[in-house]
C-alpha cells in the first residue's frame, strides 16, 4: 500500500476531569475513504478538532506526507490542505454560491474584488466535481445537499488534500446520498484523502475502504471495511461490559401505578402522535442517533415546545400542558441536555439557580425569603455533594459535573412525579456520573417515573427498565431490559434492521 498521507500517532488530549483522547492513532492514504466510527463521546470529534486546529493535542505526532506538522490554528490546518465539512455548515447564508466558495480568499485586482476571476475559479472547481449549482442564488435558498456541495467546493478551492466529513448523510435523502457518494468517488480518483465519520454503519461497506473504531479515547482496531462485518463493528464500538459501571436497577413492582401516560402527543417538532407510558419506579430509556427526535419528544411532554394535540396524564390524573409552567405545576420536570444554554443562569449563584423553578415556595408576598433559600441550597449542596465554596458561588465557576448537579437540585426540590432526563451525563466525569445514577434510583424509590434520553448506548441499556428506540421522530421499537442488546438497538436506530423492528 502507498505510504499514508496523514499519520496521527499517540494523540493524547485531556480536559479538566476527562481524558478525551488516550493515545489515538490513525492513518489515511491519498485516494482512500477512511471511515471513523465510535460511540458518542468516544473521542471522534476531539480528534477531528485537533486536525482542524480548533484545539491542540497535549501529546502525540501528526505527519502529513511524511513530515511532522504542527496545527496551531484553523488557518494552519487550511494551509496544510485539511478541509472540514461539519454537520452544521459554515456558509454565509446571504452570500451567493461563488462568494461562499471564495470566501476569505477573494481574488482582487488592486483594491477591488475581481468578480469575474471569482466566478471563473468557482466554476472551475464545480466543473471538476461535475456538479451544477445556481451560482447567483444566496446560500440560504439552496437545499441541504446543495449547501453541502458548496462546502465541499469551498474546501477544494482552498486546495484541500484531506477532507473530513462529519455525518455527511445525516440530513440527505436517498437520491442525494447517491449523488454524494458519486462525488466522493470523484474526489478519491483525484487523490484526495477522506475521513468519513458516520453512525450509519450500513452505508460504510458502500463507501469506505478501511474503517477505524475508537472507543474511550483509544484506537481499538483498523481493518479493511470488506473484512469488517457489521456485528464485529458494533461489538468493537460498545466493547466494555455494561454491568459494572451501573448500579443494580430495582425491579418495578407489578402493581406500580402509572406515573406518566402520553397519548397521541404532537408538537411543532413531533409530527407523529406519541404514545408512551412510564410507571412509578420505572426508567424508560429513549435510544437513537443524534437528531433522531428524542429531545423533541421530551420537550413536548414538558411543554418546552408547546404540544399541539394529544393527552397527558400524570399519576393517573389528566393534565393540560401549555408551556413549561403548567408542566411544572403538573409534576413534570425536564432536565435539559444543554445545561449552559437551557439549564442554568450562569451568572447567578448556586442558591439562586436552585430555587429558580420553585421560587413561589421560597417567597412570601412577593418577597424572596433568602434565608429559606440558603437553607435549601445548603441542603442540596450536601446531599448531592456539589463541590462549591458555598451557596453564593456563581455557577459559572463550577465544573461541568457540579453544574449538572445544580440543575438536578433545581428540579429535585420540587418533588415532581415525572423526571425527563435529556443526556443526563453528557460531558461529565465518571465519578459524577455514578452519583447521578444513584440519584435517579433515589427518585425511583420516592415513587417517581423517569424518561431518560441518552446517546450513550451502554447508559441506555444499563440504566433503563425498558428501551424505546427513536428514529426519524417516532418510536420504532420497544425492548424489555432482557431483549435490549446493543446489536438490536443499533439495528433499529440506524435503520439497518428496519424490517425486523417494524
Amino acid at each position, binding site marked *: 500500500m502507498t505510504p499514508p498521507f496523514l499519520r496521527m500517532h499517540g494523540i493524547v488530549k485531556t480536559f479538566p476531569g476527562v481524558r478525551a483522547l488516550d493515545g489515538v492513532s490513525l492513518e489515511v492514504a491519498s485516494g482512500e475513504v477512511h471511515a471513523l466510527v465510535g460511540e458518542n463521546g468516544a473521542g471522534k470529534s476531539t480528534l477531528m478538532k485537533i486536525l482542524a486546529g480548533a484545539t491542540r493535542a497535549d501529546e502525540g505526532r501528526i505527519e502529513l506526507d511524511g513530515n511532522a506538522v504542527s496545527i496551531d490554528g484553523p488557518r494552519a490546518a487550511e494551509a496544510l490542505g485539511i478541509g472540514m465539512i461539519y454537520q452544521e455548515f459554515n456558509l454565509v447564508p446571504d452570500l451567493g454560491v461563488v462568494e461562499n466558495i471564495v470566501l476569505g480568499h477573494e481574488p482582487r485586482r488592486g483594491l477591488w474584488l475581481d468578480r469575474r476571476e471569482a466566478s471563473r475559479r468557482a466554476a472551475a472547481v464545480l466543473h471538476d466535481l461535475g456538479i451544477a449549482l445556481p451560482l447567483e442564488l444566496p446560500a440560504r435558498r439552496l437545499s441541504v445537499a446543495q449547501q453541502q456541495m458548496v462546502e465541499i467546493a469551498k474546501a477544494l478551492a482552498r486546495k484541500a488534500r484531506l477532507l473530513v466529513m462529519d455525518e455527511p448523510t445525516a440530513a440527505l435523502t436517498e437520491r442525494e446520498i447517491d449523488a454524494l457518494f458519486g462525488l466522493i468517488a470523484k474526489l478519491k480518483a483525484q487523490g484526495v484523502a477522506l475521513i468519513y465519520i458516520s453512525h450509519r454503519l450500513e452505508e460504510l461497506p458502500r463507501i469506505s475502504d478501511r474503517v477505524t473504531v475508537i472507543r474511550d479515547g483509544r484506537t481499538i482496531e483498523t481493518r479493511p471495511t470488506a473484512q469488517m462485518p457489521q456485528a464485529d463493528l458494533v461489538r468493537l464500538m460498545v466493547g466494555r461490559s455494561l454491568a459494572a459501571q451501573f448500579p443494580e436497577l430495582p425491579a418495578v413492582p407489578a402493581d406500580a401505578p402509572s406515573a406518566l401516560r402520553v397519548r397521541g402527543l404532537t408538537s411543532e417538532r413531533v409530527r407523529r402522535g406519541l404514545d408512551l407510558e412510564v410507571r412509578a419506579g420505572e426508567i424508560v430509556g429513549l435510544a437513537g442517533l443524534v437528531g433522531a427526535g428524542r429531545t423533541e419528544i421530551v420537550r413536548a411532554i414538558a411543554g418546552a415546545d408547546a404540544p399541539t394535540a394529544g393527552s397527558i396524564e400524570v399519576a393517573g390524573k389528566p393534565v393540560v400542558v401549555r408551556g413549561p409552567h403548567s408542566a411544572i405545576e403538573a409534576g413534570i420536570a425536564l432536565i435539559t441536555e444543554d445545561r449552559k*444554554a437551557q439549564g442554568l443562569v450562569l*451568572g447567578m449563584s448556586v442558591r439562586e439557580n436552585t430555587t429558580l423553578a420553585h421560587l413561589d415556595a421560597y417567597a412570601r408576598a412577593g418577597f424572596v425569603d433568602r434565608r429559606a433559600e440558603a437553607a435549601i441550597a445548603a441542603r442540596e449542596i450536601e446531599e448531592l455533594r456539589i463541590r462549591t465554596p458555598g451557596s453564593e458561588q456563581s455557577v459559572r465557576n463550577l465544573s461541568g459535573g457540579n453544574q449538572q448537579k445544580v440543575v438536578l437540585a433545581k428540579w429535585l426540590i420540587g418533588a415532581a412525579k415525572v423526571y425527563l432526563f435529556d443526556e443526563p451525563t453528557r460531558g461529565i466525569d465518571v465519578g459524577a456520573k455514578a452519583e447521578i445514577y444513584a440519584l435517579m434510583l433515589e427518585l425511583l424509590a420516592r415513587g417517581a417515573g423517569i424518561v431518560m434520553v441518552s446517546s450513550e448506548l451502554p447508559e441506555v441499556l444499563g440504566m433503563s427498565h425498558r428501551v424505546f428506540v427513536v428514529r426519524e421522530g417516532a418510536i420504532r421499537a420497544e425492548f424489555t431490559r432482557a431483549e435490549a442488546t446493543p446489536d438490536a438497538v443499533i439495528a433499529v436506530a440506524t435503520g439497518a434492521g428496519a424490517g425486523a423492528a417494524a
Partner: protein
Amino acid sequence: MTSPRTLLLRTLGLVLGLAVLVVVINVFAQGSFLTPGNLTNVLRQITYNAILAVGQTFVIITAGIDLSVGSLIELTGVVMATFANAMPFGGVGLIVATLLVGLAVGCSAGLINALPVVKLNLPPFITTLAMMLMARGLAFKLAHGRPIPINSNAFDGIGTGFLFEGLLKPLGLPGIPIAVLWMAVIVVVFAIVLTRTRFGRYVFAIGGNEEAARLAGINVGLVKTMVYVISGGCAAVAGLLYMARFSSGSPNTGIGSELQSIAAVVVGGTSLMGGRGGIVGTFFGALLIGLLNNVMNLLNIESYTQEIALGAVILIAVIVDELRKRYLTL
C-alpha cells in the same frame, strides 16, 4: 446576579472615585463646588435622569433597551398639563389625579413598547425607537408646538419647594428639595423590588438566560412586559417633576434624555448584555454624570467641550468596569 460582595465593591469603588473627584474639583472651582447649596442643586438636577434611569435599569437587565423615555417625559408632561388645566379643583387632589393620568399614559406606552417584543420577538431597539418618534410627534401635536403653561399653583411645591428648611438651616443647608425626595423614594423602592422580590429575581434570570428562565416555568412575556411598563411609569413621574419645575408641559424638553439615562445605567455598572446590574449603581451613575455637568459649569467650560468630556467619562467608566470584572471578580 452579582454577589453582594462584588456589588459592594463596585459601589465602594464608585463612591471612592466620586470622593477623590469632589476634593480635586473643589480646589479648582475655588470652593464654589463643595457648598451645601451647590450640592443640593446637583441632586435636584439629577432627579429626572435618575428616575428615568431606574426604569431603564430594569429594561437593560433583561437585555433590552428603552429609547422612548425621553419622548415620554414630553408626552406625559403635555397630557398632564392639559389635564390639570381642565380640572376645576386644586391641591393634593389635583396632584394625585394628574399623576395617575400621567402614569396611565406612560405605562400604556410601555405596554405598546413591550407587546411586539414579547409576542413577535422584535428587537426592543426598534419598537422603542418607533415609540420615541410617535410620542414626540404626538406631544408636539397636542401642544401645538408650544409649552402649555399650568394655571394651578398646586405643583409649585414639587417644582421648587423644600422640606425641613428650619431643621437644616443651622447646618447651612437650604432644606431638601421635594423633588429629590420623590427621587429618593423611587430609587429605594425599586432597589428593593429588584433585589428582594421574586419579580426582581426573574428580571435577572431572564437577562442572564432567557431560555433557562422559560424552562423554569417563569412567565417571561409577563416579566418583560412589566419592565417596559415600569420604564414608562418612571418616565411619567419624571415628566411630572419636569412639568412642576417649569410650570408647563413642554413638547421638547426630553430630547437626548433617553441616552443620558442609558449612560447613567451603564456607568453605574449594569451590563447592556443583561443579567447583571443594580439600581444603587444606577443612582451613583446618574450622580456622577450630574456632578460632572455641574463642575464643568462652575469651571466655565464651554458646552461643546462638556459634551466631549461627558462622552469620554462614559467610555472610561465602562472600560474600567469591564477590566475590574475581568481581573478582580471571577
